[in-house]
Structures are given as C-alpha cells and as structure tokens.
C-alpha cells in the first residue's frame, strides 16, 4: 500500500499554498498533517499529481482569544486542541471531541483544519464545530471569506471550499457556561463513530450528528422540536426524521436511526441538565 507518484510542493505560507492551488487546479491537494489524505493515497483512492504540504506553516497553528470567540489556526493539531486550557474553559466540547479523534499518535499529527476540510461524514470534529455554530475562515486568491459551519459541509468528502481556497482559521464562540455533551458510539476506541451526537445548550440547544448522512449535519428536527417546547425525550424521538443514514457492517439504517435517538436522548440529558 504505497501512494502513486506525485510532485511535492512545500508551501511556506498560506499565499504560497493558494498560489500552488491556483496553478495546479484540481490536480493538486493540500496536505496538512496528512492523516486524512495519506491513507486515501495509499489505497490509491486519490492520486493527486501535486501534493502541497502546508504542514510547516507554523503561523497557522494557534489558539487565540478573539474577544467574543476563540480563534484556532487551521493547522492546530488535535492534541493541542484537546489539551488547550483556553478551549477547556471557553468551548470545552471542542477540546473533548478532539480527544476522541483516532488515537494519541494520530492526534499528534492530524490537524483541526485538515480534518474539517476533508469533510468526512463520520469524523468527530465536525460535530463539535456544527453544534458550536462555529465560523470557518477560508482564504483564496481574492482574499478571505467567512463560512458558517452549517454551510461548510456540502457533500460526501465535499466542502464549501473552492478548489483554490484554503481553510485558515476556525472561530468558535465562547460558551463557558453552556451545557454540552458528545456521545460517540463505536466498537473500538480508535474507530470512527458509528453514530456521534454533539449537543451544546446555551439558551437554545444545538444538536449535530455525524455518520447519519452523507455529510456531518445539524439535526433540524430535534432542534425544531426543542424550540417548540418539546421535552428532551420527545425531541430525541425525532432524531432520525428526514435523514438517510449510511449502511455498513456496523449499522444499517434502522439501527443507526435507533442509535441516533438513543444518543440524542443521552446528549440532551447531559447538555440540558
């Protein structure tokens, strides 16, 4: 299991990376920690002609207080997110969810931005980003723009990023007093969620799910039920409504739908108590 040959370009900063993307178009892939990309390349499920290594752009690895939000550089590693005192205080669900990604060795290399930009419907971090209603900052040849988390995941392994754009920063609102919960159901600790549910309760309650559709998603049905005054148990009962969960050896649609109801119930119980 060896990647197909490619040209390697090291980007010293975001502008250089964007320039490389502009030059090579669809033939190029950005690589941050490489923990989403390299496995696909080893199986030759993706064979980019050019790999643009952005992993050395140190000025995109930070966790800063941005006033009403915490700004996290896209190249911040999972382990840094997991162990950040600032995040533990201001957006604890994100630090907690980061601790559920893969295993410690994976978390030493994988990055928050890399994971989000990969757009895997089963990965953990999108759940926290969606439930926190974070804002993602993308930079392209014409400058930068902000994308709401709920608009970011557009399809299976697809995001709102244009082919010449790069994710540079993730802004999560400060919610030090919010109730929160992440319920990840899997077989082995290192595995992806069979279903994962994140809830953040801060006045209103946001509920996000992973591996319940072709993208990570906000649970419109549950949130609407809660907004309409439904109890947590009643809201949990509609968790699978309108969704088309994936089917695999770990779960068919019926079981995933059931898990979604159970896990939303548990998440709401924890977040809203």
């Amino acid at each position, binding site marked *: 299991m*060896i990647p197909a040959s490619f040209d390697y370009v090291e980007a010293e900063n975001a502008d250089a990376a964007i320039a490389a993307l502009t030059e090579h178009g669809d033939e190029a892939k950005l690589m941050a920690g490489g923990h989403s990309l390299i496995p696909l390349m080893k199986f030759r499920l993706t064979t980019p002609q050019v790999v643009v290594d952005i992993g050395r752009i140190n000025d995109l690895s930070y966790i800063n207080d941005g006033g009403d939000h915490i700004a996290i550089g896209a190249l911040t590693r999972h382990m840094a997110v997991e162990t950040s005192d600032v995040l533990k205080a201001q957006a604890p669900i994100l630090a907690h969810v980061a601790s559920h990604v893969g295993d410690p060795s994976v978390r030493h290399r994988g990055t928050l931005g890399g994971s989000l930009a990969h757009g895997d419907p089963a990965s953990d971090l999108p759940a926290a980003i969606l439930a926190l209603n974070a804002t993602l900052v993308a930079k392209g040849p014409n400058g930068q723009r902000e994308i709401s988390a709920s608009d970011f995941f557009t399809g299976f392994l697809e995001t709102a990023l244009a082919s010449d754009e790069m994710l540079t920063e993730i802004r999560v609102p400060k919610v030090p007093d919010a109730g929160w919960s992440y319920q990840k159901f899997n*077989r*082995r600790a290192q595995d992806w969620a*069979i279903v994962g549910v994140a809830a953040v309760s801060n006045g209103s309650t946001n509920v996000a799910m992973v591996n319940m559709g072709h993208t990570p998603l906000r649970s419109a049905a549950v949130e609407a039920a809660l907004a309409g005054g439904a109890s947590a148990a009643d809201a949990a009962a509609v968790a699978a409504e309108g969704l088309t969960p994936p089917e695999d*050896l770990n779960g068919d649609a019926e079981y995933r739908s059931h898990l979604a109801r159970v896990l939303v119930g548990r998440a709401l119980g924890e977040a809203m108590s």
Partner: protein
Amino acid sequence: MTAVMGTPMKRKEDPKLLTGEGKFVDDIHVHGELWMGMVRSTMAHAKINAIDTAEAAGMPGVHSVFTGTQLQEMGLWAAPLPCAWPVTEDMLNPPHFPTASEVVHHVGDIVAVVLADSRYRAADAAEMVVVDYEPLPAVASIEDAIAGEKLAHAGLGTNKAFHWPLIPDPDALEAAFANATHVVKGEFVQQRLIPAAMEPRGVLAIPSPAGGDITLYTSTQVPHILKVMLAATTGISESKLRIIAPAVGGGFGAKLNVNPDESLAVTLANKLSRPVRWTETRSEAAFSTHQGRGQKQTMEIAADENGKILGVRAHIDADMGAYMMLITPGVPLLGSFLYTGVYDVPAFGFTCDGYFTNLTPTDAYRGAGRPEASYAIERVMDMLSYEVGVTPEEIRRRNYLAGGGEFENLEVASTLVFDSGNYSPNLDMALDMAKMAELRAEQQRRRDAGDKKQLGIGLCTYVEICGLAPSRALAGLNYGAGGWEAGTVRLLPTGKVEVVSGSTPHGQGHETAWSQIVADKLGIDPADITVLHSDTAISPLGMDTYGSRSLAVGGVAIAMACDKVIDKARLIAAHQLEANPDDLDFEAGRFGVKGSPDKGLLIQEIAFGAFTAHNLPDGMEPNLNEQMIFDPPNFAFPFGTHVAVVEVDEDTGETELIDYIAIDDCGNHVNPLIIEGQVHGGIVQGVAQALYEGAEYDAEGNCKNPSLMDYLVPSPTEVPNIQTGYTYTPSTSNPLGVKGVGEAGTIGSAAAVINAICDALRPHGITDMSMPATPMKVWKAINSADSTANNGGGQ
C-alpha cells in the same frame, strides 16, 4: 543450583525484540533482490480471457512480468500445492497451483507476477497489468455451496468435497435420542476469521552463487514441513533447499501452510538466479493467507429427566474455501472427537461435510476445530441447563467424566482416551474466584430494577486435544505426516550447552522454556544454554509448531535427550572416578560418589573429557551429543473453566466484557509467566470471535472488511484485565506431565462470552446469539423479542 523449571524466568528472547534487533523477513535484504508484485484476481470466479502485461513490463525498474499461463508453461512446478490431509479416500481436491491460468476461483487468486527492483515499483507495475475476466457464477457462502445451484469448480460437478462420519455405535445413538426426556438442539455458525498475526507474511528466496542451493527465509511456523512439501511440489531436491524462519511475528495457525508466494519465490529465484522477495500487505492478507473457522454446526443433546446426558449428535458443514490447503479438510476433524466435551456421554455421533466455495481457503486458526467443538457443546449444555431448570454449573457437574473425580487414561465416547482430568475442583475454583453467588445476586438486582445495563454470567468448561502426535493416531486420521518431535542436546567443550529444537517458535518463548528444562535436568545455568531452532540447516529434523504441541512433544524430546546425556555422562564419570555407575548420584550438575562427598565430577568436566576423548570407557563414542525423537503414546488433554461477565446495554445492544476469570489446567508448569501470557492472548482471540471479528462477504464473493480498519481486531480498550488461576493435573502422556496451553484460552472463551450474553438476555426470552455479537445484532434481537412478546407472543 535451585530449580528453574516451574519458575517465572524472564524471557531470553526479549532483549533483541525490545530493541529492534529481532529480524523479521522484511528486515532482511540482499543485493540484487527482486520484489514480486502479485496481480490478484478481483473476481471470485471467472474465466481469464486475456492478460495485458505490456505496459507493466515497460515500466522503470521492472525486470519481468509473468502470467499464470506463462509460469505454468515454464514448468516451474512438479505438482500442485499440497494437501497433506486427504480425510477420505474419495475426497475431491482440484489442482491448486501457485498461480491461476485459465480460471480464477477466489478473489486474490494470483493471475500474474511482476518482478521489479523495489517495493514501490513492484506495486506500481502490478497495478498496470490489465486482466480481462469473464465472470462465472460465484459460490459466495456455504449456503450457496450446499444449495449447489452454482459450482465453485465447474469440473467437479459438485461442491461437496467429502463426507466424514464418526459414529461409533449408531444403534446406541438412536436409542439415546429415542429414550430422552430432554432433547436440545442448537444451530451455530462459526464465522470465518482472519487470523491477522501482527506480522504480515513475507518471503525471501536466495539462490546460492554456486551449487544450485536455495535458501528461503519465510514467515512460517513450519520450516521443516515446508521444506518437504516444497521439494515435492517444485521438484527441487530437498538437499538443495534450506528453509529459515527468522523472527516470526505471530502465527496462530495462519503461518503453517505451503503458500503460493513461497513456491513462487523459490522457483523464480531458481529460474532467474536472482533473490526474489515479497511482503504481504495487510489488506492483501485477507486473500493471500488462509482464514479460520467457517463452519455451520447442528448440535443435539439428549438427556434424561435429571439432565444426565444420554447422547450427543453433531453435524457440521465446513467451508473449505476455494482450494484444499495443507490441512484444510482436517481442521474440522481435529474438533470432531471433542463434541462430547468433558462429559460422560454414552452415545455419540459426528458427521462432517466439506464444501468448496469461491472464497479464500480456510485452514488452521488458533484452536483449529477445537474452539468450534467446545463452543457447540458448551452452548447446548447451557441450553440444557435452562431446559432442566438447574444452573449451568450444576448441569455440568452432573455430567462430568469420572463423576467429577480425578482420572487417568479414560476412554470417552468419541473413542479417544483422555490422558488425565479432574474437573470439579477446577470448576469450584472458578466459581470461587468469580464470586458467582454475588454475581447472581447483582444480576437479580438489576433485573428487578429494570436496569438498562443487564448483567450476564457465562460459563465454559472446555477440554482440548493437543500435542499432536502420536503418529499412529494421526495415521488413523489419514494425516500425511507423523507427530513426533526431535530435540538434540550437545554439551560443548567449553561447558556450555547447545540445544537444537525441532519445534519452531513464533512468540511462545521456546528459547527460555527449553533452557529451563535443560538447566533443571543438567544443573547448568540457563545463561550457558543456547537454543537453536527454525533453520533446517541447523535443525534438520522437526515437525514444527501447531496444535499446542511444542512443549508436550518437543520440550519433552529435549528433556529426554538430557536424560540420554546424563546416562552417558554417568558412564564416563564412573570410568574416570573408578566407581560403579550405580554408586553415583547426579545432583545440581555434579556426579558424586555415594558416601565420598569429595569425589565427583561436574558435567562440564565430563563434557570436556568426552570432547578430548582421552579417557573414555572402551568403545564409547566421543562427545556428549544426544538426540531424542519423541513420539508420545497419546495426545494430551488440557482443560479448564472460564467465566465471562458481561454488561449488555439494552438501549444500544452493546456488550461490555467487564470481567473474565480463567482457571486452566495444563498439567505441570515449566514457566508460569509464559503460560499466563498464552492464556491471556488466547482468551482475547476467543473474545474477539464472540464480539468483534468475522470476515464478511458480499453475494459476489468479495470480502467487505479486509483491512484492520474494518476487521475489528480488539484494541486495549475493548478487553479487561483477566483473572487467572490453575489446577495441576499432570499428563500421563509424557514424562514431564505437561500439556499444551497455546490454544486453550481461545477454546474456552468464545462460548463463555456468548453464554454470558444469552444469560443477560434471558428475561427477553432470547436463547441464542450468533457471533460476532455486534451491538446491532443484539439490539435487533432484543427489539424483535420484545415486540413479539408485546404482540402476544406465540400466536
């Protein structure tokens, strides 16, 4: 010197393995080596219309590309790959060559081989070989095979490879069931398992620069058997083949075969006069290394009103996969004799039908036939206990052989003679350590409280058959080899000892355990003992490692070789001390003259004297260099009681194994540390079968979970610490009184875990759960049982 046998000596193997100095096949490189890249069939059953190798052949670094047909025409093989266990006279065995020529019979069948100058270039070139297949109907499951509408091998006209019966007294069996108060029937599936030794297999064949000899480094459990079989199937003389198993990263049965890659490496190296190598990738291993289990079992037990067993009847349909590998058809038979477990069964019948499918071949995997047997009998014993209305432990006690007391050489219904056993004390110890009464009280408390996490307690009292030998018994099973093992003990002029082992380790710690045996026998410091093994040039005689046989046959051979050394040394000592041999005591490495404490000779001194040969008794051969080839009079039958404690989350169906108690009896102990490790690892492989693992195939015969991302080998977070304990019932099959322990854990654990789950789910009326008991499966069972109950149940 104090005794070292029976002590937890630290392993001699460890320093190398802990510092990266252990050399596995892929660590060994030679100049000029060519990497094989295997082009494997992507279809389970298809005709090969054409293979285009032009693009691959023109790629940089590519030496050559051969299709299966070309290799066949090159005359590389004298015979197909071997099956050494034709279980019946009329067993079907379609020819299995290292590469397919006209038709592929499973996904992964090799259709072409690329040779290139690097790992990377071989992978690149193999991708560029284009194969045009014409699909044929694929037998994608044993159900497909039994239905027989599609044929795995069109030329055979049937999928059934053999029918094998073992029914000592058919009339008695019929009568037992006719007269029974209770008849309980269980239908179980032993799902296919991917062995997944952590080291993928690999080969490196090096032709000698002169003389035409070939050395094959291979990740194998069976260098000696492999040598014979490669000689027979390649036509290369045995004398020109040297097989070396360097550090081998686990085997579990998966490395006891004669594989296409091994044959290809040897024959291509021979043909091209270049070193040829290959290392399996993990995702390839689901197709390039045999799998385990793959059986459907029908198990019936007849009992009187008290639950006393009257008869046991078992039938299995066994999935051979696409071809008969080395011992494929024999695996189910290894279990056949144990479907009566540790119980006094008056009447017994067993039948097995072997079927071909278009799936990866099956063969031995940890326990090989015995975990399946243990599972079947221990599951139906639990079912019988419910039926009779007694506890699982009580139904077992009522049926133990010899009334639960100690015995030696007891004949059982399947016609075997168990060497020794004593089951009740072993069960008692397990129940004590598990605190069974407290567990049952907690279970009841949770049931009464309607707790969402229900407790289940599962029991298994297993017996296994190990120490494969005796050769005559294997002959009776039509096995194509003997069961002896060789050991040599040489005292060197320096006073150190060289031990040559016929059995070959791959993690079991032979170097340590054999050193302990020899140290104890000869009174020599274990540090002065070197154990040589796993190289047919150094250890030319051996029958290798499988079936928990190393200690019970090979370790015993070494102990007996030590006895020969001592006998000879005694004569030399007597000669030199001018004493009668019978007047010499041998203690702590010294021959002393009785009554004259000052007069004596160390065995090292005698060794030097035997080497110089200056002063030996008349006619005696120089040197202390003794070989023993041991062929035991009987198998050994380890046993034990395992208790699994599980929590089943009724909301999600998730099972958590929260405690595990194992009381094993493997006779006398050589190294308790090593025994403990074998038990732990074995248990987790059985737990893995019960809860996590299973090769899944689609209707076209594609494996859906070949990688370790999808094939769920448990990680540290899925298993608890394991509580262990031992009873000690010495074997009567060998002078050390030892029994094997490598497979025992696996043989006991799957049934214990599933019995525990069924115990937890009893309030729902659930009586069985198939393996692996995934959360989805368990939740669906609860959901369906509850909705049936809510709808008025058995309408």
